[in-house]
């Protein structure tokens, strides 16, 4: 309890971003605490990716403050974000198919002993890391190409943990996965939380969000549209916050089904 109420490890204050004539983000606020999974949801074009890019240093914000452990920081390059302790796992994973699991985990930060790759130490650390995350893959010495989609996702997530980050951003980690593999990735997200990491989970899948997230931050048209405690919120409330009104295709459908209006669901969110 104490940790969640403490200073957020990462806080965004009034983040704004403009692309030409489009105001992509307007005064967005977001707080992540250690040991907390925050789902970032919103329709296509709501600004989720832009916000993530601002945090990861890929596309710095025009306006607003990023606070890291209470201090305002400038994140203008991906490298800066990594040094602070923000790891990002992009949707397209960025793994090298021809390298084995160990090679991919340590790509760009190989362990070198006297100028020579220390394969033994890398393999030992890789097995150790995968074991602590209860990740099961056939062998750490087979090319990543031979892993299933879920296994590749878990390797990509494990890789982001090697830099000892405090916040991990997962961009649609379950988008292309089957039932079993989705469950594996969600298990992994929970293990990240148990390790005391702050996790930002971007997802379109409400079932996943409700399964692992503690809070849900909704973006709509580049603005905050409410933050919900998952346990105290119904799925309809979140959906109506995403779509922005109680009169839309989703609620109308709901209304038709129930035979009467369902007007309370989205109150106070807009």
């Amino acid at each position: 309890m104490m940790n969640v109420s403490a200073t957020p490890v990462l806080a965004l204050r009034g983040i704004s971003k403009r692309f030409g004539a489009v105001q992509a983000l307007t005064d967005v606020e977001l707080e992540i605490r250690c040991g907390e999974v925050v789902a970032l949801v919103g329709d296509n074009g709501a600004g989720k990716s832009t916000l993530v890019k601002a945090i990861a240093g890929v596309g710095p914000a025009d306006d607003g403050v990023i606070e890291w452990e209470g201090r305002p920081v400038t994140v203008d390059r991906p490298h800066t974000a990594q040094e602070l302790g923000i790891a990002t796992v992009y949707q397209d994973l960025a793994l090298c198919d021809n390298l084995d699991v160990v090679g991919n985990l340590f790509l760009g930060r190989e362990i070198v002993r006297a100028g020579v790759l220390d394969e033994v130490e890398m393999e030992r650390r890789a097995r150790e890391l995968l074991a602590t995350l209860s990740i099961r893959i056939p062998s750490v010495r087979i090319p990543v190409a031979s892993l299933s989609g879920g296994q590749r996702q878990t390797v990509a997530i494990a890789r982001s943990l090697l830099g000892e980050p405090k916040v991990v951003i997962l961009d649609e980690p379950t988008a292309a996965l089957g039932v079993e593999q989705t469950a594996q990735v969600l298990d992994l997200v929970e293990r990240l939380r148990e390790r005391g990491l702050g996790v930002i989970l971007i997802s379109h899948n409400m079932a996943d969000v409700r399964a692992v997230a503690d809070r849900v931050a909704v973006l709509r048209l580049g603005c905050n549209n409410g933050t919900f405690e998952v346990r105290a919120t119904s799925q309809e409330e979140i959906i109506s916050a995403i779509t922005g009104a109680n009169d839309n295709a989703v609620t109308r459908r709901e209304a038709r089904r129930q035979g009467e209006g369902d007007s309370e669901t989205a109150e106070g969110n807009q």
Partner: protein
Amino acid sequence: MSTNPSESRGTEPADGNGQAPAEGAVTAVDPRLLVRQEGFAGYWSEFGRKLRSGELGSLPVVVGLIIIAIVFQLRDSAFLGAENLSNLFVTAAGTGLIAVGIVFVLILGEIDLSVGSVSGLAAAVFAVLNVNHGMPEWLALVLAILSGAVIGALHGFFFARIGVPAFVVTLAGLLGWNGLMLQVLGSNGTINLDDTGLVADLTNHYFTDISAAYGLATLSVAAFFLLSFRDSRRREAAGVPSRPLSEIVLRTVALAVPAYVVAWLFNQYKGLPLAVVIFLGVVVALDFVLRRTSYGRKIFALGGSVEAARRAGINVSAIRISVFALSGTMAALGGMFLASQINAANQSSGAGSLLMNAIAAAVIGGTSLFGGRGKTWSALLGVLVIQSIASGMALLGIASAVQYMITGAVLLAAVVIDSVSRRTQRSAGRA
């Protein structure tokens, strides 16, 4: 949610003792896990699995070499004689060195078509500096090889920084550097080299003492065994899977047999050729670079996925430029050996089938044209195949017309094996 970061943070042990959870993860539950049995049975079953899933490795080329040897030996018993094989190895060194550079470029997933012209130009540069301008041989040699490196870096610059496809850059190089070579050689067209000099020695010097060849064989075998053994012990100590001693011994014997046979053959003729020592030295050194250094790992990463490499913080342009520079360097070095064989730099240096032979050697030896897979050893194996065919045909007095057709067919067969094994690997999920 109430969680305690300080408590759970400590679950990843910083040193030692990672064995227990790791073992658990491998042996438990999932039947799809690849658990290798102990000893020979496990070794063979894994070998069979690799074959079925298309990881052929060096197998096709070794089988090919054996077939070639049998066919030619049946037609002419001089083929496997000491003199012919010794000459075969020496002749193979020049093309082989160029092929080693090609291997690096192929692993990037690119191609270098200029290596033939660059090798000819380097020979011409050396000849002009040394013979025409009286520069000391060693300095001329260094400058000639350096010119290859600079030319390669230039190709790399146009490819990596300007974004011109490597195919086109090096095709321009193929024409351009050949033109420059003709220009440098001048009206005469042929410059004869000092036949007792350093460059002449490259392919004409033999270590006649029989202890040289046997010594090198012993050294290689002992080094291989000790390094494998030490590696295995370290892995055991760290609790990661290691090769059993029986397998290390088996591999050492598999290396020792050809090493001593070849050493014996060399001693039957003139002794251990300097060309072979340099070629093997380069192959071993660059194999080390490729597999044991982070630079080599970055080259493989680029061959696998440029975007992933970039995101991992790898300087993509620098790696690309350096690999093309290496290819140019190896082309220049190979050019020196080829010039040494004819003791001259002339207008046909680096022309003809040299480029195709170098690329074919790399591919025949098992380096993938599709990038991301390859070994420097494939240059050695591949060039032996090509040189064996050339040598055998010459022994039998077959015209070069037929020789080209057969070499072409072998190259096609190698590429077919590469493509098919890649497809099999993909369907077995191991592309």
